[in-house]
């Protein structure tokens, strides 16, 4: 079986600075995989490389065995990889409902159609309502997304990313800045929405990581220093030194 995501000697430089320094990583189909690491380790950069926001400087990214390095983001999305952002990245002037619907239009094969009236597309609108129900924003669906609370925007962010039914979902710090109860809700939501799919997430909250992930990779200064089960990561000396140690210094 081919891996959902396979990174081979992936590299990224900004000018003379190499941020990602030869990452090799294989994420199996259906796995919930967390990437952790100290600030500035390159976690978000790695996400941007996989999802097509940045071009790679070297190495390859494969999705289900197909090389997707340097494809534009929309091509990668169409191949079944969808992501959320660390900084909330929604359509602020459009309603919550429309935000989610935008995440569904391509997979419902509407493409750039100007001959379908959007409000008449029963299946699309019903599916949108379902997703909104799942992310718990049904009562807020008509208001502009820009005026939602922070936690609601995070939920919407996940909703847009997951709506299209992509089989690989990447979440960049989905619980950043949330309170405890909000985090619990977010975890439940992530668990529900990624059922039967591959999940890759960057997360700072170790509670969330050990709760959700099947496997964890530790990224330090652009290199993966360990990739293993939560149990082994927790007990790994190298990880404790490099990561938890670095954390203590801050």
């Amino acid at each position, binding site marked *: 079986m081919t891996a959902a995501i396979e990174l081979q000697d992936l590299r990224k430089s900004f000018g003379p600075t190499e941020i990602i320094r030869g990452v090799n990583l294989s994420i199996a189909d259906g796995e919930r995989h967390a990437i952790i690491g100290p600030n500035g380790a390159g976690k978000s950069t790695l996400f941007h490389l996989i*999802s*097509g*926001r940045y071009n790679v400087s070297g190495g390859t990214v494969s999705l289900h065995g197909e090389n997707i390095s340097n494809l*534009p*983001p*929309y091509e990668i*999305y*169409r191949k079944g990889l*969808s*992501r959320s*952002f660390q900084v909330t*990245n*929604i*359509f*602020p*002037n*459009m*309603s919550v*409902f*429309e935000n989610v*619907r*935008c*995440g569904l*239009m*391509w*997979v419902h094969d*509407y*493409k*750039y*159609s*100007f*001959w*379908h*009236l*959007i*409000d*008449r*597309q*029963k299946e*699309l*609108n*019903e599916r*949108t*309502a*379902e997703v*909104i*129900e799942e992310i718990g924003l*049904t009562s807020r*669906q*008509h208001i502009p997304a820009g005026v939602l609370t922070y936690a609601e925007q995070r939920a919407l962010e996940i909703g*847009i*990313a997951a709506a*299209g039914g992509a089989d690989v979902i990447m979440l960049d710090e989905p619980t950043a800045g949330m309170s405890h109860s909000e985090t619990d809700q977010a975890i439940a939501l992530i668990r529900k929405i990624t059922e039967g799919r591959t999940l890759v997430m960057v997360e700072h909250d170790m509670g969330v990581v050990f709760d959700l992930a099947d496997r964890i990779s530790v990224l330090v200064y652009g290199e993966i220093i360990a990739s293993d089960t939560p149990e082994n990561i927790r007990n790994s000396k190298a990880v404790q030194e490099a990561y938890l140690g670095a954390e203590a210094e801050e």
Partner: protein
Amino acid sequence: MSEITKTASPATARPLMKTLLPWIGFFILLLALPNIFSSNVGLYTMNLMGIFVIFALSYNMLLGQGGMLSFGHAVYFGLGGFMSVHFMNYIEDGDFTFPMYLIPIFGGLIGLVFGIIIGSFSTRRAGTVFAMISLGVGELMAASSLIFVAFFGGEEGVSGDRTTGPDLMGINFGQDIHIYYLIAGWVFVTVALMYLFSRTPAGRMANAVRDNAERAEFVGYSQRKVRFVSFCASGFFAGIAGGLFALNFEIVTEENLNALTSGTVLLMAYIGGVGFFIGPIVGAVIFTLLQSILSNYTDIWQLYVGILFVLTVMYVPQGLTGIFMMHTAAWRMRRVGSLILPYLRAGIPALAMLTGIAAFLETIHHMRSSVEGETAMSLMGVDFDSHSFVAWIVILALVVVGGYLTRSQLPQLKEAWEMANKPPAQREGAGS
């Protein structure tokens, strides 16, 4: 703004009647207008309004719906006009037979073709790059129009005759009232089509790309293609407006595709409000009114339009439609009435101040441009001497006292506004 209702009910739950009602009203209004304003000036103004309504709405497909600031939209309008007037001449010469009232189709097609050509490279980027390319293309076309005389007719333009060709049930559009109904028909159809476009996946994604182009790429859409589709549609409708212009005036000149016209459409859309579908309609109507009515009374009407534009940009970026829409919350809570008095109390002095400013501008203008020695002038029925001391005292008093009183009323206006918009929960019980 979404019309979708509750989760359980299907998307079509919004009653058809409620959707159609504004359109029926619009249709009746278009039919009724010439009976209310039946004078020649009225018809002339309304014809121009209709053309500008289509043009401004097509512009807003770029600016308001798609987030593309264009400084060269007149290109598609002008080319549509030139193409149409040439076809009018072919019909007149008997080269081929085609009903004159469908001529704007050719304008639309040429607008579409040029939309495809120019859009293929200009929509690559939004923002400044797009704006600069549009400016460049606009200048290029304006320059070409004086070079390619065979097509653009040089400085005197190209003229035609709309009364030839097969007529429509005996109507040959020789009279202004006929051309009014022709334009009204086109306005109704194109406004409906442009509205429907905004309700399609392409139209929705145009909004999404405007809001957040990057995110749109992560839900499967190429921002460039989304912009391209809007751009082509916009060119098409601008071309139709140009075709109607050709039919209405029977002459198209270089001025119709130069930067002045591009600026005019930007003003219309912005003053009306780019964030609302009807914004550009309001803007086109108001601009045309200012242009054709104000220009009868004053030579410096363009200065007033300019001031209006600057004030809109500075204080009400949502446009005039936005001012009305701001009141929807208060309207729903039935509290608009409580705002009338504060508005009057601030509005009357403000009006005095504006009158003073206008009088100041007019008097200065009169002093500069009138015949040497002529000092008598008339403003709004008041005759006075532009060099007299009293006149200047009155003007100054209007500005200063009006300004002072307006300012003094602002705090209580603000308070009244906040009261009117306070969520109902704070007053009594739970809101809807």
